[in-house]
């Protein structure tokens, strides 16, 4: 059920600007909604992170993935079991930039017969990596529309991204990869019964939204073209807080912009917040140096314990019988 609800919700999100972004409606879809969405995104994101940040980390409980630092002659694994801040930074970098934990699944394994193959979750790792990096590249490429003059890195990025020099406008690999990876992640959810079992609307919705977003972008670049100069005029107007609506921008642009607005406004209230959360996960961002450096729990409180005195009072005679030393005779 979750699939269909999400699917139709995204269809509706496509239809709304298709109908509404005409005439004066363009001011709503081109100026008002994007501003609101950006505000929700930035403030919501900060709010969520601050909310997490205000919650203390009472215990230092890193998950260790390698040999700890112990005796000097024992080979230590500083990245999977960091004992220093530098190590933690390294571990986090591997985690955030290379999805280290997902990669653990992909190890050459013993199989029946002479075949050597990899664990099945290699595909999850590849798709996740492709998805996120493609998204990043696509986002950065859009800076050519945000900034005037166009910053140098965009040209560089484009020449790398479009190195195949297919078609005109040049085909950018990142856009296609993004769409395919999102489709893979969706199909995986549907095709694997275990995953279908654990998925609900909130899992399908962002995927459909991103598929629609990437789809409308590709459509706009390669098929239903819009006047890019006017688009840039609109966007630079937005970012310089001097919004204007130039004439004659195709409606597909407003669909694209609206989907983006919905995505970023939805972001802080959803699982997409893993983008911020991954940095704050206490099992990953802490050093395994518990026995060297004391960790303070801000709400640590005294507890009722059974003291030695109580213990001896109860067992004194029996202790004396077998010659165990006692405090009081």
């Amino acid at each position, binding site marked *: 059920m979750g699939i269909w609800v999400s699917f139709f919700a995204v269809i509706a999100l496509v239809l709304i600007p298709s109908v509404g972004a005409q005439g004066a409606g363009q001011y709503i879809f081109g100026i008002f909604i994007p501003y609101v969405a950006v505000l929700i995104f930035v403030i919501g994101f900060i709010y969520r992170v601050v909310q997490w940040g205000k919650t203390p980390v009472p215990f230092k409980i890193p998950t260790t993935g390698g040999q700890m630092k112990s005796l000097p002659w024992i080979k230590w694994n500083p990245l999977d079991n960091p004992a220093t801040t530098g190590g933690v930074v390294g571990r986090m970098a591997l985690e955030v930039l290379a999805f280290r934990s997902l990669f653990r699944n992909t190890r050459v*394994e*013993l199989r*029946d017969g002479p075949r050597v193959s990899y*664990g099945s979750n290699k595909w999850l790792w590849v798709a996740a990596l492709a998805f996120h990096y493609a998204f990043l590249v696509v986002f950065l490429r859009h800076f050519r529309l945000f900034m005037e003059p166009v910053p140098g890195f965009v040209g560089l990025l484009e020449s790398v991204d479009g190195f195949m020099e297919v078609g005109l406008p040049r085909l950018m690999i990142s856009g296609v990869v993004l769409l395919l990876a999102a489709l893979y992640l969706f199909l995986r959810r549907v095709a694997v*019964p275990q995953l279908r*079992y654990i998925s609900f609307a909130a899992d399908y919705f962002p995927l459909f939204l991103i598929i629609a977003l990437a789809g409308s972008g590709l459509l706009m670049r390669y098929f239903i073209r819009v006047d890019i100069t006017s688009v840039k005029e609109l966007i630079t107007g937005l970012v310089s807080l001097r919004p204007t609506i130039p004439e004659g921008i195709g409606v597909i642009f407003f669909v694209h912009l609206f989907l983006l607005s919905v995505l970023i406004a939805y972001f802080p209230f959803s699982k997409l917040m893993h983008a911020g959360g991954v940095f704050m996960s206490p099992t990953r961002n802490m050093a395994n140096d518990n026995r060297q450096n004391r960790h303070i729990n801000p709400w640590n409180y005294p507890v009722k314990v059974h003291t030695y005195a109580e213990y001896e009072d109860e067992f004194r005679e029996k202790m004396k019988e077998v010659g165990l030393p006692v405090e009081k005779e």
Partner: protein
Amino acid sequence: MALKQLLEENKSVILSRWFDTILETYPVDTQHFLRSKKNQFDNPVARRISDGIEGIFSQILNDDEEKDVSPFLDKVIRIRAVQDFAPSRAVAFMFDLKRLVREVLGKAIRELQLSEELGRFEEAIDKMGLLALDIYMKCREEIYELRVNEVKRSVSRLIERANKICGIPGKEGDPEVCSTDNLT
């Protein structure tokens, strides 16, 4: 033995359908997992089942006098005995084989008029099915034995010590057991 030859020729088809039939007794969400991962350490259950049924099947085809299916039956049943299956469900897979063979080879058997051989073959499977039930019971008994042994083991030394303190010689048939009052 023409039937045997037929079985031999269709071994891989029968085995894979047999495997599927067994997997169908698990929750649908699990079936995918059991089917997808072939690594014997990541997915030991599927591995054990497929090894087991392959062994059973080759023992059926084996003409040797001392053919023994028990170790292979044990492979499959030992895991099913602790997986919440009713006894009948735990061993039903043996009887499923009869249906599978008829499904796969039914036409050929009629054409070659091997029904008599088929009868003998099915009789053999029935016997194995009964053997499977024995093995199931053995596994269950082992579980109960483990429970008893564990309770014993968890205080074994204490009791041993208690007996030593009281100096019980512990002759066979001696009903006298030392009181452990002084210990608790």
